[in-house]
């Protein structure tokens, strides 16, 4: 097992140049805003955020905003709650939240809350607890959490809590580490973590660690390095990260590194 080859990861992010006719290169055009969030946050963690031209990033982000206040995944794409959060997160990363009209963005998100407290992703109505997290996280960053009905939002999230302590995408949906991250994150920001059975959920989460040290997202599924984020951050939010083996997880993650 080696170390994190940080410089190589920085180079990778800075020069995402795929083969011209590679299919993989074209499928991500509409979610460039997400890609920016993950890539820039990584650069920040590696201490290299200054290698990026902040003015160009901000200018591009703003060109993705629509009149309704929401942001699209790229220029010319419809607004969606997913990309709205990524946009706000990137601006926050650069301490540039002052460039947006926070009330405008807030109104867009407020308009997406449904009667039962859930959130739709956009005008087409898809509902998922991911969107609950996004709404709450985004408004929290904008210091406008009080503009939505937080009680109802929390009630809806709790209605997605399962008997194993986990959370699904909708009421009755199977517990899944990604959805759990969203629900626990939302409840944490909303100050309602007391509604989570931390012991039960903590056990469910630590049972995600398999022999190789990696984490899976549901029982009897294969481990994947992405769950290192969803499971780990969930455990941290409920103060139980010590219930998994740190050393074994580190080894698994480094084994996933493509050098």
């Amino acid at each position, binding site marked *: 097992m080696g170390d994190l080859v940080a410089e190589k990861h920085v180079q990778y992010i800075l020069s*995402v140049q*795929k*083969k*011209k006719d*590679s*299919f*993989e*290169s*074209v*499928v*991500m*055009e*509409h*979610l*460039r805003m997400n890609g*920016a969030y993950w*890539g820039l946050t990584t650069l920040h963690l590696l201490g290299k955020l200054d290698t990026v*031209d902040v003015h*160009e*990033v901000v*200018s*591009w982000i703003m*060109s993705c905003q629509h009149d309704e206040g929401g942001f*699209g*995944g790229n*220029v*010319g*794409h*419809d607004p*969606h709650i997913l990309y709205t959060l990524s946009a706000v997160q990137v601006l926050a990363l650069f301490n540039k939240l002052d460039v947006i009209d926070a009330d405008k963005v807030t109104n867009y998100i407020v308009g997406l809350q449904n009667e039962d407290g859930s959130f739709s992703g*956009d005008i*087409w*109505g*898809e509902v998922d607890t991911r969107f609950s997290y996004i709404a709450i996280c985004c408004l929290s960053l904008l210091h406008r959490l009080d503009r939505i009905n937080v009680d109802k939002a929390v009630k809806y999230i709790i209605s997605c809590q*399962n*008997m*194993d302590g986990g959370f*699904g*995408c*909708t009421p*009755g*949906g*199977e*517990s*899944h580490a990604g959805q759990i991250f969203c629900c626990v994150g939302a409840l944490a920001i909303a100050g309602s973590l007391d509604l989570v059975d931390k012991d039960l959920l903590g*056990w469910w989460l*630590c*049972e995600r*660690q398999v*022999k190789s*040290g990696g984490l899976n997202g*549901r*029982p*009897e*599924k294969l481990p994947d390095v992405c769950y290192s984020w969803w499971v780990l951050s969930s455990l941290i939010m409920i103060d139980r990260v*010590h*219930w*998994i*083996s740190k050393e*074994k997880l580190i080894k698994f993650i480094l084994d996933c590194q493509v050098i």
Partner: protein
Amino acid sequence: MAGKIEDESNDRVPLRLRPEWSDVTPIPQNNGPNPVVPINYSEEFSEVMDYFRAVYFANELSSRALSLTAEAISLNAGNYTVWHFRRSLLESLKVDLHVEREFVERVASGNSKNYQIWHHRRWVAEKLGLEARNSELEFTKKILSIDAKHYHAWSHRQWVLQTLGGWEDELNYCSELLAEDIFNNSAWNQRYFVITRSPFLGGIKAMRESEVLYTIEAIISYPENESSWRYLRGLYKDEATLYVNDTQVSSVCLKILRTKSNYLFVLSTLLDLICLGYQPNEDFRDAIEALRTSDNEEQDSDIARTICSILEQVDPIRVNYWVWRKSRLPQAA
């Protein structure tokens, strides 16, 4: 990851050479001077998207625009803006949604792990209403026959049951899937969904007896199955006393303990039972004693502490959890 649909002919005619598109000026992607996270594009994709942008910004609700969205989707089924525009086109052109359903099915065959497709499918089904019920159940069944844990498919299936009905066969369907793979956590989750929400079954209280029998049988076959143990516990949600007092639960624990194999979940279940007030008898003490290897666990008169010690040894990756469990036990008298 999305996959590309094969063209029926390999001689694709570029849009700029097609007479029916000669009046349209394509709009190139505006990436700004130095794009953040720059992406290289293939020529075909560039061209299709340039023409898509032209009709999208002009809000051209025509049948050639509809065909173009199909082409764009075939190149990138994740492009949600194309799907949005397609829905606007379908509404405006009053397209037969039965035909649209077939289109979604073809796209899904290469792209099933894609939020846009499932959302579009649901939108179509919502418009078709009750008559869509059987086709939606069949469609999800088809996807699940390839990947029985497909999260989107299960989510869609749950929506269909709650919105359009069809509960009658669902418990059987769960049993079929579990017969194929007793470790399928999604199928166990669906089982719980059915017994708690089906209007035909009477709820968890009415179903408890038969479900306990079913689950115990599953546990005996594969005691290492996390899902079955969680399901069993779930059958007694909010009824801890019933759970503690059900002799079927304690006797399956004892039975598996005596085999001295695959007893991890037995021990954790026993620990939970003791914490809820269960008092293990001499048979349990003997069975647990037989699991202790000679010197690595402390001799402890408190059976719960002994169980924690064994778990620290046999489930070392979660040693901190078991140490914490032990610390939470009431002090031995």
